[in-house]
């Protein structure tokens, strides 16, 4: 056990985590040049395209120094706020963490909150200054930030470059010297924590775990403590570039288990694996049932594809347990599903995966957070869809979820950031200067204001120099009203949104204007209205198309024109007819694109 080192990487998106991880794999001979695809640890296409790791993975390396052989388990962590619970479990599986900071950019909010998580779990932090090959690197300044944060010696900070390979040796040595070997008793009852799971179409769900105490052997009968389910350990092993089966694994080891599980929801990140015959006294702390933060309706563009959409969602849920859905119906869109997501990125990923992997063309309605409504009869229930909000006459109170937002920015942008947050109904609770030039601002804000365009706006006003993280802090009562949208007098339930009363007029106007842009002209005039209850607060008109034929169509025009009409036909296929109005997919997200 004293030759095992378990560690993770904490880094902000784009700070070069994946490239540096590749270097470690290369240097330890875990992976050959030939096998080295860019960003080896991210094996979903989508992940590679987005340049972020959506799901955490783990890989084992062997490293020899001074005649001693060490086994390293690198546990990769996702870098987006949507997946912060998964990050916390990855951190809980380690004894050390590489803190990778881009030397050209400095520390970002996401890094800090993950760093705090790591410190809470007593992880040994190895700070690494990455991208030192760039001219714009500011080693002194960024080192100072790191020293301030974790109280280390400036000499402990390792200058590195994923691109050139600089510092890789030092990092590997530091892992051996500074990260403590795991503790734990191989003879104690088995206690292993699941920190991730993946779906394999041939083998079912593969759970990744870290053993804290005890030993697991192939064919053991195991129990997952929180779900209470029992399985046979059909195969266990370690995670190299491919899975390598083992006969047994014990305290300190990181490995995988295959036990014929078909559905991802049976394997909950943070759950404890123990033996049925000799169970551990208690489960590992920190387990949470992850709850969705954002809800939206997903509907097939073609109503006939409803059953196919259900099947696709079922399959998606097999490998993404954080996706929840239940059937709902909309007067405008027919039958579909109300889905719950961890956040906006998660929602986008699901939508893209439906399109790419299942070839489903779907309409996603305006996302909303989960509200809590109390009726005049004193009944309280969750409202995950604006149209479920009780009639104003029966409504005693609406509460909406609040978050604590942490924003780190350059001091020169503090003014803009504050006015944005206040605009989004935020309440400044704290302001700390991390260095003379960097400020950490804390706000209490409604989650509903974050899910829309907050993050993009923050990036824009701070010219990219602001980072953001948040944690839920409970519900607060709020003056929310339901804003309805009517097309030619008919209410389109899928376009309704709950918004704060003070913003209703302004938003109503802007939504109507945006819809006018997004709804193509049709054979008749279309009136777009925003209303609260029966009161219309804004109106726009889409003029009728009178003529839809180009003047010329000769030898040289035919190809171009055919392609144009093909494109139009494809566009029409992506539209949904509501009443007699054809609405394009993207109009249902109009609220998100108001500027």
């Amino acid at each position, binding site marked *: 056990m004293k030759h095992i080192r378990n560690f993770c990487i904490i880094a902000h998106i784009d700070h070069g985590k994946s490239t540096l991880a590749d270097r470690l794999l290369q240097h330890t001979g875990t992976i050959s040049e030939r096998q080295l695809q860019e960003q080896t640890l991210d094996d979903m296409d989508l992940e590679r395209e987005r340049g972020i790791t959506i799901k955490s993975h783990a890989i084992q390396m062997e490293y020899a120094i001074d005649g001693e052989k060490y086994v390293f388990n690198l546990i990769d962590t996702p870098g987006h706020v949507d997946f912060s619970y998964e990050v916390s479990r990855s951190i809980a599986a380690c004894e050390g963490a590489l803190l990778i900071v881009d030397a050209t950019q400095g520390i970002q909010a996401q890094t800090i909150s993950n760093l705090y998580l790591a410190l809470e779990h007593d992880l040994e932090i190895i700070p690494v200054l990455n991208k030192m090959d760039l001219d714009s690197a500011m080693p002194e300044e960024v080192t100072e930030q790191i020293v301030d944060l974790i109280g280390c010696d400036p000499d402990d900070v390792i200058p590195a470059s994923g691109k050139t390979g600089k510092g890789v040796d030092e990092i590997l040595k530091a892992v051996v010297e500074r990260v403590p070997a795991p503790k734990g008793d191989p003879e104690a009852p088995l206690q292993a924590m699941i920190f991730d799971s993946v779906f394999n179409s041939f083998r079912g769900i593969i759970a990744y775990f870290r053993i804290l105490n005890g030993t697991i052997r192939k064919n053991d009968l195991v129990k997952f403590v929180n779900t209470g389910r029992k399985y046979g350990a059909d195969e266990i092993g370690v995670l190299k570039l491919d899975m390598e089966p083992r006969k047994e694994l014990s305290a300190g080891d990181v490995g995988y288990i295959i036990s014929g599980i078909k559905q991802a929801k049976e394997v909950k990140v943070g759950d404890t694996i123990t033996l049925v015959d000799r169970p551990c006294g208690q489960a590992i702390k920190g387990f949470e049932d992850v709850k969705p933060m954002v809800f939206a309706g997903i509907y097939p563009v073609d109503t006939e594809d409803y059953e196919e959409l259900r099947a696709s969602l079922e399959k998606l849920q097999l490998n993404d347990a954080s996706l929840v859905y239940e059937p709902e119906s909309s007067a405008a869109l027919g039958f579909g599903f109300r889905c719950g997501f961890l956040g906006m990125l998660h929602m986008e990923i699901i939508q893209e995966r439906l399109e790419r992997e299942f070839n489903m063309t779907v309409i996603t309605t305006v996302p909303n957070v989960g509200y809590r409504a109390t009726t005049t009869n004193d009944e309280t229930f969750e409202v995950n869809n604006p149209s479920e909000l009780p009639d104003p006459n029966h409504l005693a109170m609406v509460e909406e979820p609040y978050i604590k937002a942490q924003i780190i920015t350059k001091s020169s942008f503090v003014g803009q950031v504050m006015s944005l947050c206040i605009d989004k109904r935020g309440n400044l609770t704290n302001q700390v200067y991390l260095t003379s030039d960097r400020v950490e601002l804390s706000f209490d804000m409604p989650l509903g204001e974050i899910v829309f365009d907050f993050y993009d706006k923050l990036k824009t006003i701070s010219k990219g120099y602001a980072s953001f993280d948040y944690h839920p802090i409970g519900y607060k009562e709020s003056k929310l009203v339901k804003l309805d949208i009517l097309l030619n007098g008919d209410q389109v339930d899928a376009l309704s949104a709950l918004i704060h009363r003070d913003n209703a007029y302004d938003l109503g106007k802007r939504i109507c204007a945006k819809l006018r842009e997004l709804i193509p002209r049709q054979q008749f005039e279309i009136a777009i209205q925003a209303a609260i209850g029966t009161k219309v607060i804004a109106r726009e008109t889409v003029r009728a198309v009178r003529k839809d034929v180009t003047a010329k169509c*000769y030898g040289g025009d035919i190809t171009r024109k055919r392609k144009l009409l*093909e494109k139009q036909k494809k566009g029409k296929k992506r539209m949904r007819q509501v009443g007699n109005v054809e609405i394009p997919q993207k109009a249902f997200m109009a609220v998100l694109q108001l500027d």
Partner: protein
Amino acid sequence: MAGIYIHVPFCRQACHYCDFHFSTNTKLKAQLVDAIVKEIAQRRNYLPTKSISTIYFGGGTPSLLSKDEISKILDALRSHFDVDDDAEITLEANPDDITADVLREWKSLGINRLSIGIQSFLDEQLKWMNRAHNAEEALSSVKSAQEAGISNITIDLIYGLPGLSIDEWENELARVLEMNVPHVSAYCLTVESGTALGHWVAKGKEKPIDEDAANAQFLNMVDVFSQNGLEQYEVSNFGRTEFYSQHNTSYWKGVPYLGLGPSAHSFDGKNRGWNLANNPAYIKAIEAGETPFTTETLSTTDRLNEYIMTGLRTKWGIDFQVMRERFDFDFEDQYRDVIDRIIEKGWASLTDGNLVLTRKGLFRADGIASDFFILNHED
């Protein structure tokens, strides 16, 4: 049966709205004609037939070619193809190039149809468009052609011009009728990017087309022409029955054509290709014996879509029998509900197994065509 198109990519000056391929630098004219002659030889086997029933000199401004230059091209065509004795041979000409002398020359070369680029009879509008002629030249050019014994004349008109009132337009139409030409092509002004007009509209210096005014002018024109024997046989083309453009009609009926010269498009029945739209590069390629040609194979559904798209623009509509035989596609069966819907709306009618758009339907021909499109890869 097949057609040949020759693109003459030169103009004296650039019209502000035009996005066709042309150059106002005419230094390369002689070289380019030689290149076209070479291209004729190179591509003599492109068409599935040798029999040529239409030849069309378009541009650009073909009337910038000298008698010898036109003659060289026609001689080369006649030596490599079987040009029908009564083939329709059209030359596009600008009014300011038309004189009694050149008319005689063109006639002697076998040109039997003139397409005269009048566009407008209003000097102010002609100036705004940057045309080289004035209204008087427009009138006299047609007269000269008629006097020279060329009866098959078509003129081009543009409506939807900025500030053009309905009264002015009616006046224009009256003048067309007075001239007694048997064919008119009339186009709505279109704002194309990459043109001076496109630039102005993008910059806000010029307003976008006033659609309501343009539509009113179009409807007015359709009425006036049909009352005076000029039948709307295609969205933008009006003519007396025996004076329909045979060459253009071939495009709409899927007849193969060979396009020669820079930017010209060709279609051999299965593939469509287009030449480089660059005069020096075109000449260089032809001289090096290379083909300045990009080609694209049309799938059966591509060809079916094109048949629907072009057919619906014409008074013949689309023929269910042809679609069954040529494309193995049962249109009636596939689109019963859409057909019923547009007939009910008064946009189409069924005549002798053809689906033909009505005057109201022609206004929406693109939208209707795209509703009938078959997509190759559903995505």
